[in-house]
């Protein structure tokens, strides 16, 4: 318990994000429209009947639904957190998502290979593009913004070439590989589960390994990282490769959830992903941030979008509100403690 408090004390920078999340959750419950009919819900070990008027937001079905849809953004946000920690950016994740989705879809539609092979190929395609990003950034020493802008454009084109500019529809008759793929990968267990597992793995990677420590050191002060003998080039390659791999995973999930691979998939996804990471307190200047923060950021955006949708607020209005939230979140992180009570202070812990 003491240890937990100690950790919390060191992670004050997330306290405010956590408070915002809880407040948002409570608000969502309060303003959520009620159910029109009583509803039975299975919690696994028991079944409860939720009365008429119970907030729709606070049903297991709703919460797992939105988790499943947002898992795609969430998976990509894990890699983006690493990239932004190194003071970089990856604009190509949305295009990588499409490429992985198309590769997976084509393998399932046009071959007799088992669906698991299609999944592996999709993720592999994403990994390759990520490695390409990393190699170009590390070797050419061009800003990541430019390199990934180029791959964002090029990879989307490549994916459309593969799909012949048509939607790749998955076969979904019972007994086909496509059916099995959708049944298994698009299930809530697998989508939410893969996000949770990956989030845990990346949180440990960042917290517990030499690699994670190096990533933060590189973003904090690249010159000093060189002077301390860190393998900065190899690290950049690794970070972008991992991000490509995760975008590949996101592509496979998209393909399963949509039951097709379509060129609209992943359009502007990179912006949602960056927003999640930034709201989670990761600094675009590098060196400061965490996986936990990005998970909180994801939950905040997810709940916000859901509650606006449930209240029939149009997507245009949602975007305007979202803009406000991002600006507020970043402004809050700018306050380096001076005007906030000590326990609310944002930023690295000072004396």
């Amino acid at each position, binding site marked *: 318990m003491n240890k937990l408090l100690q950790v919390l004390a*060191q992670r004050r920078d997330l306290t405010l994000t956590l408070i915002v999340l809880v407040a948002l959750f409570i608000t969502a419950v309060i303003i959520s429209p009620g159910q029109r009919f009583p509803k039975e819900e299975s919690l696994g070990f028991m079944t409860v009947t939720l009365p008429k008027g119970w907030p729709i937001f606070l049903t297991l079905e709703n919460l797992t639904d939105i988790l499943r849809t947002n898992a795609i953004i969430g998976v990509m946000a894990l890699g983006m957190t690493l990239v932004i920690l190194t003071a970089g950016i990856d604009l190509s994740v949305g295009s990588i998502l499409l490429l992985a989705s198309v590769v997976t879809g084509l393998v399932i539609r046009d071959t007799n290979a088992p669906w698991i092979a299609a999944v592996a190929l999709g993720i592999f395609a994403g990994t390759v593009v990520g490695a390409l990003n990393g190699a170009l950034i590390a070797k050419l020493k061009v800003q990541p913004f430019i390199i990934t802008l180029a791959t964002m454009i090029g990879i989307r084109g490549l994916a459309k070439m593969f799909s012949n500019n048509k939607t790749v529809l998955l076969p979904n008759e019972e007994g086909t590989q496509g059916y099995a793929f959708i049944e298994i990968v698009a299930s809530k267990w697998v989508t939410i589960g893969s996000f949770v597992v990956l989030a845990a793995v990346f949180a440990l990677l960042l917290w*517990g*390994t*030499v*690699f994670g*420590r*190096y990533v*933060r*050191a590189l973003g*904090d*002060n690249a*010159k*000093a*990282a*060189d*002077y*301390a*003998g*860190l*393998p900065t080039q190899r690290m950049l390659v690794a970070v972008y490769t991992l991000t490509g791999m995760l975008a590949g995973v996101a592509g496979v999930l998209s393909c399963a959830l949509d039951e097709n691979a379509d060129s609209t998939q992943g359009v502007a996804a990179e912006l949602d992903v960056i927003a999640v990471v930034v709201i989670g307190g990761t600094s675009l200047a590098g*060196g*400061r941030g965490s996986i936990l923060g990005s998970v909180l950021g994801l939950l905040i955006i997810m709940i916000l979008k859901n509650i606006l949708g449930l209240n029939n607020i149009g997507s245009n209005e949602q975007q305007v509100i979202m803009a406000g939230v991002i600006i507020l979140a970043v402004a809050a992180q700018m306050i380096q403690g001076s005007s906030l009570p000590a326990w609310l202070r944002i930023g*690295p*812990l*000072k*004396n």
Partner: protein
Amino acid sequence: MPHRFFQAQSTHVTQSPPDTQPGPDPTTQDPLLRASGICKRYGGVVALDHVDVTFFPGEVHALMGENGAGKSTLGKLIAGAVPATAGDIEVEGQLVRIANPTDAQRLGITIIFQELDLFPNLSVAENIAIRNLRFGESGLVRYKRMDEFALKALGRIGLDISPRTLVGDLPVAHQQMVAIARALSMDARLIVFDESTSALTDDAVDRLFEVIGQLRDEGVACVFVTHKMDEVFRLADRVTVLRDGRYVGTKRAAETDMAELVRMMIGHDVDTSKHSPSHATEQPMLRIAGLQTPALKDVSFDVHRGEVVGLAGLVGAGRGEIGRALFGLDPITGGSVELAGRQIGFGSPRQAMRAGVALLPRDRKTEGLMMQMSVRENTSLAVLPRISPAGWIGRGEEASRCDAVGQTTRLKAASPHIAVSSLSGGNQQKTLLGRWLLTDADLFFLDDPTRGVDIGAKEDIYKIIEELAQRGKAIIMVSSELPELIRCCDRIIVMNEGRSVADLKRSETNQEEILTYATAGPVVSA
């Protein structure tokens, strides 16, 4: 190696005759600018401490001092580039306020920065006329009139270049002239030259001095910030010496000599009686012969196990560049470097680290520490792979090693988990030293290890250096403070313009001799 054991010269020999005959004594006129009680503090550091100085029209006034004496700060302060913490400035008898460069320019005061503040992607004419690009009522830029305006300014200093040339395409010397032309076009009456010759070739220096002489004859006050003796005697009418941010005195150049100025720069109140005991052995650790890099011309010296070798010299003499070459940051283009008997030339700091070299960089904030990371994370950074089986950080091992080295360096931090940015300069430096102590290197290159560090921490750092020597490590130490070098080092190598010009035993030298070698003009090889 022609001049490694260069004989000490008479301090008067390097004095060149003045380029221009001084005119009538300018001090008989009314002063142009009088500064009194000027103080400047950066946080807790006092850069200027109640300095009084007066500048007359039509004089070249040199501001001299060792590295960190405050001469540049004073120059910038007069030109409004840094605001004063306290003190009064009078221009022609009127008390004025100079809070920014615009205030200064309105009074006819401007500065030629060492790092020129020109716009490389704009033309010469646009740079000169940048304060007022509107020639005419229409609000549009009139290029023809702008060119005429620029040509007039360029003509005054006799620079024959097209006003349409991009400044970035010009050689540095011409860029400097453009900066001067711009100053003149603003009707400057006082121009501060901040170490203006450091990036110039000899020819360009001659040209610059001609222009300065001409400006003086036109009645402009030229304040020349420098630490080069030969320039002072070539150019200046009067010299003001600063030491540790304090005013030491003002002399007429014709009535003083190099020896006196050196004495003024050093002061007499230095305690050099304390010496670290020597642990030097006869076993060679590092042998540098004729080393050349893009920044070094000819460097030769040896370091033995257990020996502390100091590098003295002015800023820009190439002291830190030796460390960069040893640590794989600069390519070695000539000469040889042997580490423990093996020829080396590292391509990266990683390779240098593996071979047992450690570099404590000069600027701990930009080159050393990760300011947002904790004290412990900063300390363990260079040895992390060694204490992390399969890449998983061994936190127990990390804590015990970092705590142990923290005790060695007498590091004071509220907790090992606080951000290193919240520590004092001394404790930040100890954190960084701790990082390199943990690597257990054989050769330590410490680039100004006590820079911006309080007295107590300084003593601790001296002790660490001595302990390293005792353990048989070879240490090279750069310092801008001569007493510090004399105190800590067994031998002192003096650097001058990319060359090692003297190899002096501590017991046989003194500050005057070192400073003479360091400030004398470029030594011609015998």
